[in-house]
């Protein structure tokens, strides 16, 4: 059942972050950075792609998936364009997400009021 798999695996992938929050004083950005770099490593090793085929959104939605996308983009770009793909692949793979989040954040800043107290 794909929905149950996504729920259980996605939830489980968030638990290490919570342990880090509770047991260390790591900043959120450090935790997210760790997740992405680990995602690049697992994606590059070919592990995460197969895992994502099984877990669906449970693997794509956590930030490991972002790292996997970067690694996948690099691999595909090198396969099709050669060495230049080392530089073009990562951001090409992640382009839609980064651009959408960037543009929308500017839009939100114009629409919504600050909630900082």
């Amino acid at each position, binding site marked *: 059942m794909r929905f149950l798999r996504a729920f259980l695996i*996605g939830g489980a992938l*968030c638990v290490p972050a*919570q342990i880090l929050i509770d047991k260390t004083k790591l900043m959120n*950005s450090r935790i997210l950075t760790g997740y992405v770099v680990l995602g690049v490593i697992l994606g*590059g090793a070919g592990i995460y792609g197969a895992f994502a085929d099984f877990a*669906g959104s449970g693997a794509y939605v956590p930030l490991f998936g972002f790292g996997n996308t970067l690694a996948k983009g690099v691999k595909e770009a090198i396969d099709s364009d050669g060495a230049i793909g080392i530089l073009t692949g*990562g*951001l090409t793979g992640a382009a839609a997400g980064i651009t959408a989040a960037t543009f929308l954040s500017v839009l939100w*800043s114009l629409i*919504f009021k600050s909630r900082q107290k």
Partner: protein
Amino acid sequence: MDNKQYGEYVKSREKRSPIVKNCFNAFITGGTICLAGELLAFGYESAGASAEDAPLYVLLTLILLSGVFTGIGFYDKIAKFGGGGALVPITGFANAMAASATESRTEGLVNGTAVNLYRIAGPVIVFGTSASVIYGVIYYFFGG
């Protein structure tokens, strides 16, 4: 009461970090966000998207929803409950960007919003792309 006894007393009164409960909440929250993603994927696939394209549409939809939830203050409530479960999904990344952008709007669109937009997301992109370059070098020379 000497110092040592006082130390023990303080320790006994200290609120113990409810790590098990926090982890459970993170699990439920992260799982629910991923479940929402899978439901969206199912929806997009039913509407004709290929299984390969659907994950990207899902991520873009979650980024959009996360921004709206951030703007109306609802994502803060999710994050308070879910902790790591609200941080790790792509919605946490989008929330960090949307919140940084909105909170600094008063300092101006360029010096406030644009400068601070990547305050939390920036390191993720910096180290993510750097790691991908290192992987690319390895793959180019030793892989494939």
